[in-house]
Every structure is written in structure tokens, then in C-alpha cells.
């Protein structure tokens, strides 16, 4: 650099010196992580000895079996139906809860806190726990799975719908209030249309999520293709398992691609 451009100010250091507390926390984290490697059961010998098994199972998966193709297809259909119905009912129930949980539309801060708490609780309990609870309550089968998906959707959409409503421009709702519109009119005519892109996005993600989790729900007896997968694995019919995995793959990809098309189409529409 030419001398004429040399600055009189001192250049700042590239990195700040960490405080003793952050240095201590970093060391503590490293120690905990090393301990966790043992806790997580990481074992290279087991991995190496397991490799031939993996190769054998993978070999047995090819070619995929077609002997139970139709019943499997029916189970995939049931899985999809559970996901559609569970998500739809969950969405309908999420909307009023989200209104009550949103800062700008809740009738009272206490109501807001209570509803937020309920939604958080529903979301925090894992879906497998809900599935086991419903299987015990209403018996084995798709109904237990659908109930799980409803609850799961409420936990997911309740929160994101409320946030979407809180983020809308306050101007149009204020204009509706100035007109003399009631609270429900304001929510339906101003807040919801403005939050719509976000609501549609969240709903379609909820559907994709439901399709994926409805597969797992079958493993604990909550209906659908997951039950077939569990049986195939337990009876060492890996060729059947691979058919099921391919079917699930097709279903998930189909739902995801349909939902992204729907997203583009719905968000561009006229009101």
C-alpha cells in the first residue's frame, strides 16, 4: 500500500478476546461432548462388524417383493387418508386457537398465555407419545393415528398461524376498525387475507409433515403403512420392506411436489 494511503488510526484486531466466562463455557462444552461420545455408544468396531449385515440386508432388499403389492398399496392409501383428514381437522381447530394466541387479536393476555401454553404443551409432547396414548385410548388402527395427526397439526400450526397473524401490517385492520367492523370481521377480512401466504405455506408443510409422521405412527399400531413395514422387518422380509420404503418414497415425493405446485397456485389467486 502506498504511504499516502496509510491511515493514522490503528487497525482493529481480527478477533475479539473471549471473556473468561465464555472460554470456561467453551471448555465445559468440549468436556461434555467428549463424555457424550461414550454415552451415545459410538463404537467403530461395532460399525465395522455390522457392515456385512448391512450389505446382506441391502442385498436381500433387491429385487423388491411384489407378492403383497395390493394390500400394501391399500395401506399407503390409508396412510395418505389419515394424513389428509388429520391435517384438515387440525388446521380447522388451529385457526381459532391461533387467533386466541396472537398478541393483536387475543381478547385478554391471560387467554393468550393459556392458549399459548396449551399449544406449546401439545407440540412438546412427541407424536409417538401421543400415538401410544391414543392407541391405548381408542384402540389399534387408523383412528388413533388420525387423532395423533390432529393434535400434531394443532401444535405445529397453532404456533405458526399465531405468529403469521402477529406479523401482518397493522394498517388494514386499523382501517377496518375505523369503519366500525367487529373483531371477527377484522380478523376474517383483513388479518387472514394478509397472512394467507404464510398460512398456506404452513398448512402445506403440516400436510407434508403429517404424511411423513403417519408412516412412523403405524409402527406403534396407529394404522397405515408403518404397521406393514414393522411386520416385514420383524419377519426378515427385507424384500417386502424395500417395496414399502419405495412406496413411502413415492408418496412423500408426490405430496411434496403437489404441495409446492398448490402453494404457487393458491398464493397467486384473486380474492
Amino acid at each position, binding site marked *: 500500500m502506498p504511504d499516502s494511503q496509510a491511515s493514522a488510526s490503528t487497525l482493529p484486531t481480527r478477533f475479539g478476546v473471549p471473556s473468561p466466562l465464555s472460554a470456561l463455557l467453551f471448555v465445559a462444552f468440549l468436556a461434555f461432548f467428549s463424555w457424550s461420545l461414550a454415552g451415545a455408544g459410538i463404537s467403530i468396531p461395532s460399525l465395522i462388524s455390522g457392515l456385512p449385515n448391512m450389505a446382506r440386508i441391502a442385498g436381500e432388499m433387491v429385487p423388491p417383493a411384489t407378492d403383497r403389492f395390493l394390500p400394501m398399496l391399500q395401506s399407503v392409501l390409508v396412510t395418505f387418508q389419515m394424513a389428509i383428514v388429520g391435517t384438515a381437522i387440525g388446521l380447522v381447530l388451529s385457526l381459532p386457537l391461533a387467533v386466541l394466541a396472537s398478541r393483536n387479536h387475543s381478547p385478554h393476555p391471560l387467554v393468550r398465555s393459556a392458549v399459548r401454553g396449551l399449544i406449546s404443551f401439545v407440540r412438546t409432547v412427541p407424536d409417538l407419545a401421543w400415538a401410544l396414548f391414543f392407541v391405548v385410548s381408542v384402540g389399534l388402527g387408523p383412528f388413533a393415528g388420525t387423532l395423533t395427526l390432529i393434535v400434531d397439526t394443532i401444535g405445529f400450526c397453532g404456533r405458526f398461524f399465531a405468529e403469521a397473524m402477529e406479523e401482518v401490517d397493522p*394498517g*388494514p385492520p*386499523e*382501517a*377496518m*376498525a*375505523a*369503519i*366500525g*367492523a*367487529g373483531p371477527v*370481521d377484522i380478523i*376474517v*377480512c*383483513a388479518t387472514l*387475507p*394478509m397472512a*394467507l401466504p404464510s398460512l398456506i405455506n404452513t398448512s402445506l408443510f403440516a400436510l407434508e409433515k403429517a404424511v411423513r409422521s403417519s408412516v412412523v405412527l403405524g409402527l406403534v399400531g396407529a394404522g397405515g403403512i408403518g404397521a406393514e413395514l414393522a411386520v416385514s422387518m420383524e419377519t426378515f422380509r427385507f424384500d417386502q420392506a424395500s417395496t414399502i420404503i419405495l412406496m413411502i418414497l413415492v408418496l412423500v415425493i408426490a405430496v411434496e411436489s403437489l404441495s409446492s405446485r398448490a402453494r404457487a397456485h393458491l398464493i397467486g389467486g*384473486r*380474492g
Partner: protein
Amino acid sequence: MNAANLSNGAIAPLPPALEVRGLSKTFRNATAPVWSNVSFNVPAGQRVAIIGGNGTGKSTLLRCCLRLIEPDAGEIRLHDKALTGTHFRHLRRMRAHVGFVFQKHNLVPRLSVLTNVLHGGMARARGPRYWLQAFARREEREYALHCLEQVKLAHLATRRTDHLSGGQSQRVAIARALMQQPKMIFADEPVASLDPQAGEEVMETFAELTRAHGLTLMFVSHHLEHAMNYADRVLGLRGGKLDLDTPIATESVASLRTLYA
């Protein structure tokens, strides 16, 4: 200038559309009031410009007059009925008689122009039918289109409002206010976000419509020329009080500019 004296002296003896007595407002966490002890009457049919520097509380005053922001003290009577202290349900009915046009039009994006205008009638025609133009009664749809004709935008009835220009959006907002069948229109810096040409058109639209329908108009503006051209009277806010209340005929742009000194 003394606010009270001038407001009493210059006004024709018409029944007041708006009466404001001793209004004060202090925002939470603020050390000083926005303004205090503001009093004025607006006779029916009068056009009033509210002027003042940034942060003098012009928009707050307009919003307090409809209790969109709650004033801390004072009394407001709208068309001879008490607005302060009234129950929320009654307040909604009273608001219905006042069209409010905002600086940023505040139309609902994604909905059609006709639906947005139709929402202006929400206080008299309410319920799920009126949420979208597609389900509304024929008479209401026709009236909404008639309101759009008055702002010369009937040909854009089916367009989404987020596909309009700033000037068109503001005229749709005026049509929405007309849909209310208002006795009075409040406008909060209605041309602040528009180019000069579109701004003039919007102010002309206000002038024509208020004349044609005999409406009372209160508008906030930073354009002193607009105050001179479109108002009968000017209210000026400065230093936390109503510092100017005078008929426009006695003022000039230069004399109004002293308010900003």
C-alpha cells in the same frame, strides 16, 4: 393566536359535526404529553386542515377523535352524540359515519378492489356474506361499484389491490370511505406517499366529493398549499397544544409556515 377565540368567531352557525373539549394524550413511557387541553368544534360541511411539524401529534389527534387511540382526558361528541365513555358496540356504530382515509391507503392486499370497497359498508351490512364481494347482496355490490365510479375506477373492480398504483389505491380507499355513506371524512396525510400529480388528483377527488355529498372533511397535511386550496379552516399543533385555529381566508402559505419555525 388564541385558538378558542378564533374558532368561536369565524364559523357560520351550523350544528357541529365534531366537538372536542379538553382533549389530552400522553403515550406510555413518554415524559411529556403529545398535546393537552385541545378544544375545537367542527361545523357540518366544513373542511379543516390540521398542520404542524413532525411529531406534534396530528395523526394522533385524528385517531383520538375516533378513539382508534384512546385519549387520556377530554370529551368528544360526534354528530351530537358522546363518543368518549361510550360502549364499544355503540362506538362501532358511530365510527361507521366517519370515513377514514390513511396515509398508506390501508387496503387489504390480495383481495379485489370491489371486495375492499364493499368492506366499507361493514357497519350496516355485516356477516359472512360481506366478507367477499362474490357472496354479497346485489344492491351492496352495485353500491360499491357506484362508489368506485365516483373515483373513476369502476373498470378496476376485479383487480387485486396489491396490483394498483399508489394514486389508484388511495382513490379506492376514498371509494371505501364513500361506501360507509359517511357524514364526515378524516384523512391522515392522504397524499404523503404520492407523486405531486397523483396527490393533486386525490385532493381534487376529496374536494369534489365533499362538495357533492356535503361532507365534513378533516385532513392532516404537510402541504400548506393543499391547506390553502382545499380547506376552509386550519388547525395548527405546536409545542403540545393547539396553537393555531383560524379561517383559511385570513392566512397565506407564508403565515402558516411560521408554525414550523
